[in-house]
């Protein structure tokens, strides 16, 4: 493990050097307690102490609107050409919950048939993590799913040690960059400070719902027909906010658009949501999840049950976005507590 040190007053130099090489995005404030990842040119634009952004950094991995191909219908046979827009971007200040989210997406899009648009785009992204020394707010449940600590998935990882950042170098790309700007190597005192911080974090970060995470999948097995889903469904607006802001939701829709010549066109991939009324509607009008309760239940199973069976990991990173963004006040932690309670019977 390689560690380097960056004095805090040098952060601006760091960002500027990075910005010379590629576009740099980082959390910036939108007011009213909202943050977004957006382009920055200097460190003073960055909100280092931020509550998870409205959309997770997944928007750089799978853009909200992505052109997949161009087509031409003017000839005898229709023609199409695959489209791929790539941009080199450094994403600075990614919390550990969002790093876990990216790892989940990597697993999904690496499954066959592989998603080359995703995989090729990912190669262009330079990920710089940032450790949370304390909770962002009461919606987070990162300790439950063990994403309050770094578990890889970054090029560089920053830990705030007061007057300086300790930087963990995790990839060759990361190493090349820190060497290009001559960052000093970490000394034993820096490593001691890191250990001390992690010890301190153990006191702060505790299982947020007091339920053994290993037991959640089997608890969900027991409560499939519980009334609790109807309660959640009654509240739900089906606005799709919870899935749009989720760092691991990856469902998408494909739609073709024709240009004004009515001969050529393009295919767009856009984010979709299992919460929309239309999502599980098929030809003939049948809807496999016509009730809001079914759709909300599906969302929870999609985070804590199905991916455990398939990939052996939760697809919830504890970022708290779904609860934070819900106008109706649907709270994931509350749902899980109720699941635990109901499954006792």
């Amino acid at each position, binding site marked *: 493990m390689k560690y380097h040190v960056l004095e805090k007053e040098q952060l601006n130099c760091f960002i500027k050097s990075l910005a010379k090489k590629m576009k740099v995005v980082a959390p910036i404030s939108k007011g009213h307690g909202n943050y977004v990842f957006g382009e920055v040119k200097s460190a003073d634009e960055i909100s280092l102490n931020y509550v998870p952004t409205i*959309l997770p950094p997944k928007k750089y991995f799978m853009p909200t609107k992505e052109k997949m191909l161009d087509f031409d219908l003017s000839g005898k046979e229709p023609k199409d050409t695959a489209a791929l827009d790539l941009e080199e971007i450094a994403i600075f200040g990614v919390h550990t919950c969002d790093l876990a989210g990216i790892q989940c997406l990597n697993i999904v899009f690496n499954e066959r048939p592989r998603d080359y648009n995703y995989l090729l785009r990912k190669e262009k992204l330079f990920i710089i993590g940032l450790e949370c020394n304390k909770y962002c707010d009461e919606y987070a449940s990162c300790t439950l799913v063990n994403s309050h600590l770094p578990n890889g998935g970054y090029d560089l990882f920053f830990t705030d040690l007061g007057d300086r950042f300790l930087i963990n170098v995790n990839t060759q790309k990361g190493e090349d960059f820190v060497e290009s700007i001559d960052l000093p190597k970490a000394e034993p005192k820096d490593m001691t400070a890191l250990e001390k911080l992690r010890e301190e974090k153990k006191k702060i970060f505790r299982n947020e719902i007091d339920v053994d995470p290993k037991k959640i999948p089997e608890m969900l097995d027991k409560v499939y027909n519980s009334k609790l889903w109807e309660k959640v469904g009654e509240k739900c*607006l089906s606005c799709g906010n919870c899935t749009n802001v989720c760092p691991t939701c990856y469902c998408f829709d494909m739609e073709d658009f*024709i240009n*004004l010549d009515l001969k050529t066109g393009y295919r767009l991939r856009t984010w979709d*949501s299992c919460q929309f*009324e239309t999502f599980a509607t098929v030809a003939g009008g049948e809807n496999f999840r016509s009730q*809001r309760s079914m759709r909300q239940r599906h969302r929870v199973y999609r985070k804590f049950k199905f991916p455990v069976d398939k990939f052996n990991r939760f697809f919830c990173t504890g970022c708290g976005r779904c609860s934070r963004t819900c*106008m109706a006040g649907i709270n994931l932690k509350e749902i899980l507590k109720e699941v635990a309670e109901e499954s006792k019977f």
Partner: protein
Amino acid sequence: MSKEKKVLTKPKVAFFDFACCEGCQLQVANLGEKLLDLLGLIDVVEFREVMSEKWDKDYDIAIIEGSITDHHAEERIKKIRARSKILIAYGSCATLGGVNGMKNSFELEEIRKYVYGDKYHYFDSMTTKAVDQVVKVDYYVHGCPVYQPELVEVLKCALRGIPYSVPDKPVCAECKLNENCCLYDKGVVCLGPWTRAGCNSWCPNNGNFCYGCRGLVKNPAKNAAKDIIARYKLDEKLMKNKFDMYNKAKEVSDESKK
């Protein structure tokens, strides 16, 4: 078979307005470069706001703005429908009844007296109707005013003879992707959660709240509305008024059908 050269005649398209502010026509006139591209595909044969010519044959596409608010208008829209292969309703007035529907909150006689004074019987008036409450509508372009990119999309569908489906998800779905600060976080009442998307959250993107001008989604969350009214301590009446601003005409017809 000999390769006969097809005589390409561009579809004849006419724009008509009923009770409205003609703001949607302005949106068409302001399409800019896109308008020039469109004019390469269609023959505009009537468009009161931009030309004085009239057309006495059938229309391939009639594009209707405004709501139906008197008997003369009712007859006129029926005649237009009879002469049109495809009819597009555009703008909230045409698709929902729109702001003109606010009239329906009052007794017709009363509101006529209020507006026209004691000579009100000289001025014909009836309950405000959306175009589809009088004649069949093939395509809808919702919004007050219409959102230009959607209008162009609908026209392309109409020209290709394929259906256009209006998104049946709330405005939030688009608003969230635009990473707007939620209006409820700002303490502002917003109708986005119940209003159909398709405008790319045009108003919230520009710092405004959603007025519900595109009409409600097919299955609006009524229970959740009550919860939200309670959670954010909103005035239920105010909320109802906000919904009625654009959606009153539709509500009346739905009730009368029952």
